[in-house]
């Protein structure tokens, strides 16, 4: 007997910094991957919520036991609080597209969730565990594959997905990527934040700067190469808001990520069958929030000159490219297959 309940397909990009969801009812949402529980009775009374998620959590962080439950794109292993935080995050994302926790059994949710390219089986099992009870059927895919699927770049292309926690590389050969086709680097957006914080602290030791401030500055003014506009920010120096020029520090932090990225890109390219290398070189796609560093695309093209040149396309709307790709997979998968995947 077939199940007549309504089916909602969703694609979820569970990111270290931001998580997004795209649903078959046309809704798309993105939230900051933060979850916080009020620290005490006073905080609970002020905040009037048992748990805060996303920007809400970040802005009230002083009153919260704040968790960023994903590290390098994966659920932090072994920490019950972080597992609970991921569950809250997922439920919140689902609620944003209309799935109500209290109406379990109302809508059948078929979800595709992206994880870093080199995620271990045990990490994928954690995702399955976190989503159990929230969705009826689940498919876990590598993030760059979801991007490639959504962008119709499944043959002779290279996806470089620069996230906050990891940079994922994937060569698409018209087959499901194997380990040899993929790489994951720990140098990504968070790494740049750490470097930038270090450089700013060295240059302006009197300034009082937090990692959250640095992250916001990077999102506004990251660049590689030359820039005509200086990166000016405001931070308290001895308690007084002061304008600081961090142009050089920003360049230094952002360019620090280039050597490992270029090395991995060229290494993966060298492993592509010689007949197809030129086609792959001319079809490099850069996605992810960190991919929006100004000047990154042209700089990678410059590096490709060493092996005969190539073209790099930077995805303009990186926020939803992963979740949109996941949704495309969810919609294309036959219903019979979703039944095989139901838990």
């Amino acid at each position: 007997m077939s199940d007549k309940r309504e089916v909602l397909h969703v694609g979820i990009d569970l990111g270290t910094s931001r998580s997004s969801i795209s649903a078959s009812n046309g809704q798309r949402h993105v939230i900051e991957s933060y979850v916080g529980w009020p620290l005490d009775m006073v905080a609970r009374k002020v905040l009037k919520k048992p748990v805060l998620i996303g920007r809400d959590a970040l802005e009230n962080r002083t009153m919260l036991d704040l968790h960023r439950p994903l590290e390098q794109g994966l659920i932090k292993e072994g920490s019950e609080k972080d597992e609970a935080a991921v569950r809250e995050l997922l439920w919140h994302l689902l609620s944003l597209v209309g799935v109500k926790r209290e109406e379990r059994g109302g809508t059948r949710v078929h979800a595709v969730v992206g994880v870093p390219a080199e995620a271990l089986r045990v990490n994928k099992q954690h995702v399955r565990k976190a989503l159990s009870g929230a969705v009826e059927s689940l498919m876990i895919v590598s993030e760059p594959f979801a991007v490639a699927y959504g962008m119709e770049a499944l043959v002779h292309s290279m996806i470089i997905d620069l996230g906050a926690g990891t940079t994922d590389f994937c060569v698409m050969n018209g087959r499901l990527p194997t380990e040899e086709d993929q790489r994951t680097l720990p140098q990504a957006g968070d790494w740049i934040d750490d470097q930038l914080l270090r450089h700013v602290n060295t240059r302006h030791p009197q300034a009082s700067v937090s990692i959250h401030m640095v992250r916001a500055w990077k999102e506004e003014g990251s660049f590689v190469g030359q820039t005509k506009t200086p990166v000016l920010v405001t931070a308290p120096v001895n308690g007084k808001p002061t304008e600081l020029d961090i142009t050089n520090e920003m360049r230094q932090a952002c360019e620090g990520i280039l050597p490992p990225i270029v090395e991995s890109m060229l290494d993966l390219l060298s492993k592509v069958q010689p007949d197809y290398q030129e086609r792959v070189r001319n079809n490099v796609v850069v996605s992810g929030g960190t991919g929006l560093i100004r000047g990154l695309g042209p700089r990678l093209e410059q590096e490709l000159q060493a092996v005969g040149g190539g073209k790099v396309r930077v995805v303009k709307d990186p926020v939803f490219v992963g979740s949109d790709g996941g949704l495309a997979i969810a919609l294309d998968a036959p219903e019979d297959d979703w039944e095989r995947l139901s838990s």
Partner: protein
Amino acid sequence: MPKRKDVSPLKRRLLRELVRENVDLKDNRLPRSLRPGAHRLRTTLRVLALVLFPAVLLGSTQLITSLQTPPPPAPPAGVAVPARPAPPDRRFGAPEPIHADVLPLAVHRVAIDPGHGGTDFGAHIPQGLREKDLTLDISNRLARLLAADGFETVLTRKGDQHLSLAERGARASQERADVFVSIHVNWIEDRGSRGVETYYLGSTLDPFLNRLAAEENRGSGYSMAEMRRLLDRIYADVRQESSRKLASTVQSSLYHSLREVNPVLEDRGVKAAPFIVLLTTEMPAILAEVSCLSNDQEAEMLAKPLYRQFIAEALAAGVRSYADAVAGTSPAEKGS
């Protein structure tokens, strides 16, 4: 948004593969890429060829013989023939952990791995003590003690040479060692700490242990893809449980024996941490931090050959107890 109808053949094929991979994950089966399928098939065909050829020959002989010999009597009517029990469901590669007690294999050959070596000094202090020298000395002592007990021993390095972590594991595997004991000397930022601790392979959230593992994992000689394959296997591996037992036995022996000569020694316990050298082996493996070079009093003791002998004896006693436990005899029984 409606379901898409015009799915290209390429996408259909990719989706089929993706679903198959996810069904394996859901059912907790190893992915096909990690199963030795093609190799196994080739091996199976070879074995079949070897078995079938004589069997066919034998069969034809029996066919001739059967023309002369009456067939065995049929069971009398009404007597039930017991049904052959159904074969167990052995989905190849199912990664459910097997309990170590199911495979009580004896310990004959012990691989001893003196940590660091060559250009890699490990921990060292201005007074001239270097981890690489201390580990080699203790390892040589341990090898002699175990040999005297009838164990065969294999040292991953016999002199002051640099070996990658992968080479260390490969050597132990080539020599078909039954257990692997990697010997290290600790360096702890809190220099007042002095103690012994023993590791087996696993993941950890402790930032100190992760830093320690990262320090010891330098120059592993493994790519990330290789590492991923290795890690995927270990989670379904019987070795993890055996390694935990070995670590626990050795740690207990180290702490209790050494405490007699070093009463302020701390029991820093048995811990799981992602040391690559433990991942590269094919047998139960542990990494023992037998002392703390960062502590001045410990360093003084380590400089004395007698204390290094005590450490080696404590390690040997731990290995012996584990071997006895695996063989199913208690140390007391063996000694009597």
